[in-house]
């Protein structure tokens, strides 16, 4: 199966296709993690994006049903250097190729992803088109160029759960992966760390929420009711939440007026609010700020973020192409975290209200585990009231 990737700047990469026989347009972006491709594929923030991995060998450890980040993979296409035809891992349920095929996602392998990445590093994210169907270079280029792009498009509606639900009521999916000890019986793949009681009810707005965030919230003792992105403040409040969580999600935050309005209403209630990634951008807008598109989006597992209060630097996992404009934020908002690479806003808190948020992914999967205390902070914030 021949496959093609065309970029709006006129470049065309040809290689071998895998996954589904399909075509898709999207914004082409790269990820520098050496592992963690399954988490990337299923991260809703990658909606409408064609993702390429800089690490050359992908698929070696297959995919499994536990390490998914949402109900399905969301990337528009997947571009790698070398796909493993076999799976070498004790927890694997399927191969990467099978997984993409089942989910209708086209893959391209056999190209120099490092060269592609370098192009994206120089030019910024580019619109592109990927296909494993018989399509000429000219047509592929045409499709890449004619794609309108992410600006102004609401992808949240496509990735959010359609119905409200309570996360993991039976406590089967939230406990941390644990390694089997000694001669314990049972399927080792299902051995889990114990969970605390779920004693604080909160509502989470699902803009394309990663399951790992839900797992972390549950691990902190939250009982989480997940609402579709389009839910109103009133719909949230009828569940009497002790706190509101605003999730991550894909695309342009400026296209989400309904979400911004709901958050504005919630801000009036005095209920503690914690936002992550897209949730942070929505919160920024709800407080009167503006967002803009970064020339170089922040993606990957080693973005340095400085905590301006403690002076500490954290290495964080990130995945976003838009940012909150610091200058647009009102005076009662304090920027307390910045990115050391480009000095953009990585987090802020309200000076008088119980509201805080971060641009990065504190649940960090894949990536280092520096930032989990933020979930504990959210719990303290609620309990201190």
């Amino acid at each position: 199966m021949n496959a093609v990737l065309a970029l709006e700047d006129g470049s065309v990469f040809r290689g071998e296709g895998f996954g589904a026989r399909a075509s898709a347009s999207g914004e082409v972006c790269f990820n520098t993690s050496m592992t963690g491709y399954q988490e990337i594929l299923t991260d809703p923030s990658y909606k409408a994006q064609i993702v390429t991995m800089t690490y050359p060998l992908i698929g070696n450890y297959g995919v499994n049903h536990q390490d998914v980040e949402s109900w399905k993979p969301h990337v528009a296409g997947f571009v790698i250097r070398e796909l493993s035809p076999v799976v070498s891992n004790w927890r694997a349920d399927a191969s990467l190729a099978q997984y993409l095929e089942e989910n209708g996602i086209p893959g391209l392998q056999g190209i120099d992803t490092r060269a592609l990445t370098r192009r994206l590093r120089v030019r910024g994210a580019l619109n592109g088109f990927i296909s494993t169907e018989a399509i000429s270079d000219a047509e592929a280029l045409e499709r890449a160029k004619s794609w309108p792009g992410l600006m102004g498009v609401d992808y949240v509606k496509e990735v959010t759960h359609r119905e409200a639900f309570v996360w993991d009521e039976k406590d089967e999916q939230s406990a941390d992966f644990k390694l089997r000890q000694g001669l314990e019986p049972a399927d080792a793949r299902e051995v889990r760390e114990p969970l605390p009681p779920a004693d604080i009810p909160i509502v989470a707005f699902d803009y394309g929420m990663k399951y790992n965030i839900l797992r972390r919230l549950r691990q902190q003792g939250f009982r989480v009711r997940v609402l579709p992105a389009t839910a109103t403040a009133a719909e949230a409040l009828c569940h009497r939440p002790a706190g509101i969580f605003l999730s991550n999600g894909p695309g342009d935050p400026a296209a989400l007026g309904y979400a911004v309005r709901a958050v504005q209403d919630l801000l009036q209630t005095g209920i503690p609010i914690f936002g992550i990634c897209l949730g942070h951008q929505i919160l920024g807008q709800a407080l009167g700020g503006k967002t803009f598109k970064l020339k170089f989006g922040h993606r990957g597992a080693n973005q340095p973020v400085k905590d301006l209060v403690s002076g500490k630097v954290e290495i964080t996992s990130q995945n976003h192409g838009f940012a909150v404009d610091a200058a647009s934020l009102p005076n009662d908002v304090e920027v307390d975290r910045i990115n050391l690479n480009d000095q953009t806003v990585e987090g802020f808190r309200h000076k008088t209200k119980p509201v805080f948020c971060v641009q990065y992914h504190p649940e960090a999967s894949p990536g280092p585990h520096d930032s989990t205390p933020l979930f504990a902070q959210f719990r303290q914030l609620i309990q201190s009231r």
Partner: protein
Amino acid sequence: MPKRNDIHKVLIIGSGPIVIGQACEFDYSGCQACKALRSMGYKIVLVNSNPATIMTDPAMADATYIEPLTVPVLTEIIEKERPDALLPNLGGQTGLNLSAQLVKAGVLAKYGVRVIGVDPEAIEKGEDRIIFKETMKKLGIEMPRSAPAFSVEEAEKVAAELGYPVVVRPAYTLGGTGGGHVYNVEELRVVASRGLAASMVNQILIEESVLGWEELELEVVRDAKNQLITVCFIENVDAMGVHTGDSYCVAPMLTIDPKLQAKLQEYSYRIVEAIGVIGGTNVQLAHDPKTGRVVVIEINPRTSRSSALASKATGFPIALVSAKLAGGLTLDEIPYWRDGTLEKYTPSGDYVVVKFARWAFEKFKGAEDKLGTQMRAVGEVMSIGKTYKEAFQKAIRSLENGRYGLGFAKDFNKKSLSELMLMLNEPTSERQWIMYEALRKGAAVEDLHRKTFIKVWFIQQMKELVELEERILNYKGRDLPDDLLTQAKRDGFADRYLAMLLGLPESLIREQRKKLGVVEAWDILPVSGVENAGYYYSTYNGPDRVTTSNRKKVMVLGMGPNRIGQGIEFDYCCVHAAFALRDAGYETIMVNCNPETVSTDYDTSDKLYFEPLTVEDVLSIYEKEKPEGVVVQFGGQTPLNVANELAAAGVRILGTSPDTIDLAEDRDRFRIMMEKMNIPMPEAGMASSFEEARVIAAKIGYPVMVRPSFVLGGRGMQVVHDEEMLREYVTAAVDVTPERPILIDRFLDNATEAEADALADGTDAFVPAVMEHIELAGIHSGDSACAIPPVTLAEKHIRTIEEYTLRISRELKVCGVMNIQYAICQDKVYVLEANPRASRTVPLVSKVCNIPMARIATRLMLGERLQDIGLRPQHIPHTGVKEVVLPFNMFPEVDPVLGPEMRSTGEVLGMASTFALAYFKSQEAAGGPLPLKGTVFISVIDKEKPGILDTARRFAELGFGIKATQGTYQLLKENGVPCELSHKISDHQRPNVVDEIKSRQIDLVINTPKGKTSAADDAYIRKAAIKYKVPYVTTTSAARAAVAGIAAARAGRSEVKALQSYHQDIGK
């Protein structure tokens, strides 16, 4: 935290001689420690018995002691130097053990020396298996179920509870000495008693077997603020069951999912935090892919072979950073190559690193090629590529075992699939080559996985290589289609290997691919903690990202993997060449593939290309960098192997010309030259069949010395006593052909051997030193102890040797350095051979005589004249004795005798005011300290009997008891030397000599082997001596030196003295 101001002078203990399990990686880590601590303003006192190291160069420390690594000696040094700190964790297991002993003995407390880096308690927590187990229990982290045993009976009980198979692990040993897997109680008894004897504290651990589990390693660095980072995640491709030093490994982990990696990291952090190490720690874990269980195997709270590998694989100099952390800095004070500081380090990159071990089974007749829990490798290579296939194939061609790919090794291709599968029942050093042929013959990936426990991903990758190779083989004798050639190069197939597959000249393959634009490109490996380091690797899978300067530059070819005959001394020379070139204003370019070395440290040269030393790889770099020339003299045989081809391809070789090298190595050409110059050589001839050999040997007269042409380290060399033995030799030497004849020399019986090094500028030469061997001719010079200056050589012979050396250097137009070996037989000096390259004596001579030979040789190669450098012969008021270290303890099945084939892995130097004292020290340093009193056992063959009489008499005069076997007993009695009779096993009387050795009734064994290898019936005596750690000598000349040494030591031990002081006294 800023640097500590409460310490000023730091003692660093090196790791001593190179042995299996402890190679030059500790020279690398020790040098980094010296650099780091000196840059922080501390004074350094360095102790190491190994003279071939860079770290023992007088310029590396403020005071350098080349002294035996023992508690009494270190106590003396501490008393003299009064350091206020000791850094224990950069000198390998030896340094760590000694530090622990110094603490226990109260020496450090007495002299107010603080231990920095890892405190004594941490050493114990990490090293003592019982305490470590306790600590893990507290942390709730599992280890393989086990229990300690102090006797064989106890071991049996534990094993019965755990169920077989079990693993036996001796406490406090290196490279798993004396341990192993056992499958039944009989095997357990054997291995347990061996293990108890090998352990410093007579303790072994009997452990649940985790055979076949995934073996995973993390390199963790922790600072005083408890900030932790993981430098590298290493996946051992060979599963548990093969010692990690023998396993082939990849970094990063390629088949381990991120969840498991995160768990392993969490475990490692908890362990390192609990142990409390400041600096680097290696954590080894095992994961059962069937049940998911993870257990900790062990940790090394110090730099290690793995940390050296991790440093080279990631560009993170672990030893340098560890030393800085020990000096009080924290990670947030050390810069990262990215923005920020090191506490934010995460592994990254888009390349694959492969480590592959280098073994030397062929050196040990009778040794079983089997890999297990005891390390057998003598060296290793590392390679870097964009893809696994590329890196793997680069590793294979780096090994320098004459193979450039995985196919058609030995006769594996001729074997049937079932034969091959049978050969895979147990891991061997040939496993990868056998698997390759098995795949070619249709073996299923799954079947191979079940046999070897190697994960299917790796086997699948190999299978794809086999499939590509099969497609290539269709074009035998013809040009390869362009797309196939391109694919082959991308997948790492060497030009040379493709040439072999296709039956075409290598140059043709090279031309074809160059026309296609398929050429090597280079990528950058960023180095953490410093700026602007130039560290590169090649790939056929990407664009070239390395820029070149227009400075004048010179390229130095390194030594490749450590192996017997090719050791650390060549790395020493290469490093000095790089330093000298830098001093002379050249940009320096180093090429090497050995991750254990100082030459591959990021700042040894301006640019480091971590590459195989093959014509293809070296030529590519040469064409890119366009240096003024290439230095091939310092890397031992490795660069010489490619020198001719490089020269033919237009490369400018600096110094002695390839033709001269060829002349010296070509016995015929060299002999003609010697005849012309009227310099005697032993009669010799060359034969390519048994018939020819028979005629030549008859003409020369037995015994004769036979050997294959063009070898290093005396490979396959043997003394042959009669025609029958000659026939055996020729039959056994598989490769005897007109192109590869065997050489037959007259064996100079009872001859003294000597050698001389020379520095030469093409017209003039200088001889810094003549060395006298302790062992007589017939023992490989690399295995012989030797003295500088000579001890018994007549002055006229020394003059003759100097004169011959000068004449030969001039005649050969040597430019650089050269070594010539001599034998003195019946008052006549013979030339044995000349090596127009650095030999293993260079660091020795440099240190004893204070003449930096490699540096001067480099300057001469660059065009300086000897007369301008102004070297003068100087009186050396002290004596240095080199002694070798042999790995027989690792090969219990091999007869531990010396012979014409080199087998030592390393060496030590003893320096003192007299020969006798220096010899005594050298024995102490080599790990077989001579007894000052007690009983000597003597058993020599008839031929040696006259030679031993004097020695025995002197032992008796010194009050030693003497035991001897029948023949020797008779001789001594007849000559009035009091002695007792000991029984050989063949006497069928108990107690016999082995019983006496076991019960410690014998303190020194003098036992010369039978001349004929077939009748090595005394081997068990020598083997027993090794097993029970009784010092032993196998030649009468060494016995003579031993008794002189003992006498001198009894009269007053030699004081410790810094190398710098020795050097000051020269010429006074």
